[in-house]
């Protein structure tokens, strides 16, 4: 019945993708291609909705529902549980591929028939690859017999709103880069003299992908911050790196597209970056699903899946890179631009983003390389990335402040100095003001704050003075980066921590706050029972600021314990409390953090996202004009 329908839709998707691939090789079968594109969209959507339905009604005759769901799961998490597992998330991959496929199809006009058909042929090949993978190794509609009475529940840590929405957003991000890949390959396969505005087509897709990738990564980090209990939000985990690398290249890609559009330079960069960004997305998928390494993010270990994805990556990557190697020379051009120019700044940014990406890639796969060649195991953790990535990224931030103000082609250095004098002044003033409040003078701290204010003052200046000449989206996004750096620097350098054992009615001071441990209570939740610590926070004048209630929860169905931090947030700082073990006699272990300006990390990320959305709106208008 429903499950058979589910399998049917998967096979329909398979046939539609072959159909699209075949018909897009020929020129004039627009009607057939249209059927294929729309058919793909509908069948993949149906597959997904059917799986959602099966989870929501708790049909445990389906293996995927049994392994990942439970009747007591709240509705929202039954739905998000669909993409929280490997097989279900493949359906999400496929939907995003077919949605972007549809929007590529919408680009058709009488002038670009051949080109768009070529693009659709590449896109359908990618879709085909993922559908075959799903049907062969990861079919979510597999049945189980005898039918169990209930499911295996689901990890309670993952029942969270931010975590629920984070995968779909990430997927729109790195799966969306497939469109850029397809457009790039189609361009390389076309005659360069034909003057197809391939870069205009690419921009909205890259913009959309980049925007959602940004917010997807940010939500994952936000979740880690408030859920995992020690205030960390980025761990350089291989799977986190797998989402960061496409983001870095997509950022470079985005900026380069602007240069191609305005000055026709950096075309080869764009073509290569589009290919590499999507390839990294696929490699990222490989790392998560193949069982080659373990991580909090990995799905179940299965080498056969890994071999398939690797083969597919080799095919896709080998073909596209060799194509680029042979055809890219038609896209080199000799338009002059000075180093001190907008193009120059973007070139510098490209190089730095690529270097950071290469370094992160190196750090991520190096343990695997060592293991293959020496039978030894090493770890590449946070200290490595901090010492390599941060120094490299600093010049990028410096350039980013001044980039938007630079002229195209060549900038007069003296004129430039004049232009940025007010921002330099503002930066210094803001930094001095900041340091007078937060009296911490470490090198890293001061540098980080300086750079943050450098970005912020430059962009506030742009907002105020030259709003008409610069895109609101760009200024917003850049401003967001400034906020982000401010948040990151302050919360790491200025953090205060207190770990103590407290008895009831005792108090402790941190920064300028007084924290009183009032009592322990017992709390019952929908699928857990908890011990809750009740704390009252007072300021210096003994006014109560808030009540914080960290909990230690027990989920009987999965036999899990979790610790829920209690956080009070405002624009200036977070107060973060975690309750440890203890008893009435000896007291309780309590861990308190004072995290200054940490909210600006999330504000910054969201502002970047907002900037992306604003730019997307502008871009879609442009593409509509051409179509």
């Amino acid at each position: 019945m429903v499950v058979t329908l589910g399998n049917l839709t998967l096979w329909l998707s398979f046939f539609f993708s072959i159909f699209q691939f075949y018909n897009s090789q020929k020129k004039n079968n627009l009607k057939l291609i249209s059927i294929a594109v729309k058919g793909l969209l509908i069948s993949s959507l149906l597959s997904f909705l059917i799986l959602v339905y099966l989870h929501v009604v708790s049909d445990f005759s389906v293996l995927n529902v049994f392994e990942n769901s439970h009747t007591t799961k709240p509705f929202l998490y039954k739905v998000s549980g669909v993409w929280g597992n490997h097989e279900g998330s493949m359906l999400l991959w496929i939907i995003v591929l077919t949605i972007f496929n549809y929007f590529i199809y919408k680009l058709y006009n009488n002038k670009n028939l051949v080109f768009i058909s070529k693009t659709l042929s590449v896109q359908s090949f990618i879709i085909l690859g993922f559908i075959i993978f799903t049907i062969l190794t990861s079919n979510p509609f597999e049945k189980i017999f005898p039918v169990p009475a209930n499911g295996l529940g689901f990890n309670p840590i993952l029942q969270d709103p931010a975590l629920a929405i984070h995968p779909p957003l990430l997927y729109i991000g790195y799966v969306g880069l497939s469109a850029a890949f397809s457009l790039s390959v189609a361009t390389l396969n076309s005659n360069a003299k034909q003057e197809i505005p391939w870069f205009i087509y690419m921009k909205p897709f890259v913009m959309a992908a980049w925007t959602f990738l940004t917010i997807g990564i940010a939500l994952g980090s936000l979740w880690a911050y408030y859920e995992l209990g020690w205030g960390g939000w980025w761990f350089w985990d291989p799977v986190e790196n797998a989402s960061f690398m496409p983001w870095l290249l997509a950022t470079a890609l985005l900026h380069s597209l602007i240069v191609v559009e305005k000055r026709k330079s950096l075309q080869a960069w764009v073509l290569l970056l589009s290919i590499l960004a999507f390839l990294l997305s696929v490699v990222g998928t490989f790392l998560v699903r193949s069982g080659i390494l373990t991580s909090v993010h990995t799905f179940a270990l299965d080498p056969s899946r890994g071999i398939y994805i690797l083969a597919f990556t080799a095919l896709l990557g080998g073909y596209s890179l060799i194509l680029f190697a042979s055809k890219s020379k038609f896209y080199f051009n000799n338009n002059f631009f000075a180093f001190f120019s907008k193009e120059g700044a973007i070139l510098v940014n490209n190089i730095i983003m690529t270097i950071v990406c290469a370094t992160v890639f190196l750090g991520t796969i190096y343990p695997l390389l060592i293991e293959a060649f020496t039978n030894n195991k090493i770890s590449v953790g946070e200290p490595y990335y901090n010492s390599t990535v941060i120094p490299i990224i600093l010049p990028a931030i410096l350039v980013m402040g001044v980039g938007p103000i630079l002229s195209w082609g060549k900038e007069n250095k003296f004129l430039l100095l004049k232009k940025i004098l007010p921002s330099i002044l503002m930066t210094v003033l803001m930094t001095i003001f900041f340091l007078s409040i937060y009296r911490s003078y470490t090198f890293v701290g001061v540098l980080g704050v300086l750079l943050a204010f450098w970005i912020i003052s430059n962009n506030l200046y742009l907002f105020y003075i030259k709003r008409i000449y610069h895109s609101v989206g760009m200024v917003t996004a850049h401003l967001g980066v400034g906020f982000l750096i401010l948040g990151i620097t302050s919360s790491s350098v200025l953090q205060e921590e207190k770990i103590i054992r407290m008895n009831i009615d005792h108090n402790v001071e941190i920064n300028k706050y007084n924290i009183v441990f009032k009592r322990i209570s017992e709390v019952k939740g929908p699928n857990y029972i908890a011990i809750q610590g009740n704390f009252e926070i007072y300021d210096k004048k003994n006014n109560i600021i808030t009540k914080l209630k960290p909990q230690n929860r027990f989920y009987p169905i999965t036999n899990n314990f979790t610790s829920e931090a209690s956080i009070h947030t405002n624009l200036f700082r977070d107060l973060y409390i975690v309750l440890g073990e203890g008893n009435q006699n000896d007291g309780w272990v309590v861990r308190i953090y004072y995290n200054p300006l940490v909210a600006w990390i999330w504000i910054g990320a969201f502002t970047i996202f907002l900037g992306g959305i604003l730019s997307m709106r502008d871009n879609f208008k442009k593409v509509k004009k051409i179509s």
Partner: protein
Amino acid sequence: MKNQLIKIPTILFLSILLVLFYLLVIDRDPSKLPSNLLNKNAPEFVADSLLDNEKFLSKKELNNNITIVNFFATWCAPCREEHVYIKRFSSEKKIKVIGINYKDNPEKAIIWLKKLGNPYSNIAIDKKGKIAIDWGVYGIPETFLINSSGIIKYRHAGQITKKIYKKFNLLIKEIN
């Protein structure tokens, strides 16, 4: 020149994929750590013995024949599961097996061994886990194979299964 330069990333890319492919097809567990003490002398220690009043001297126990050293505890479920194989090492293969009782309650351990059978010729008490740290143990059960010169030849982290039991026996034959 630029063309040559561009071919390099392609070759690099495909080579990396080849390495990843190799790692997938070999028999490997990504969560397991190889022991850093392989082919080195077994760390020496002195401890209390579980079942008698004499001190346990590793120097005395580990330098004459092929020995198996097994870290276990009563609170460890996989230790209980694998115990049948530990017994088989001693009874069927006639190999000397030493037990190290890790972070456990000695009285509970004695009862546990009475109930499940005691294959160990001697048992050292590692109350605080210091011996375990010296042996590079990161999670019990862990089982070491020591040759007659006191050198660690093999370490298995985790429960001994039929497959691992066979592997141990093969290795023992090789050492002999």
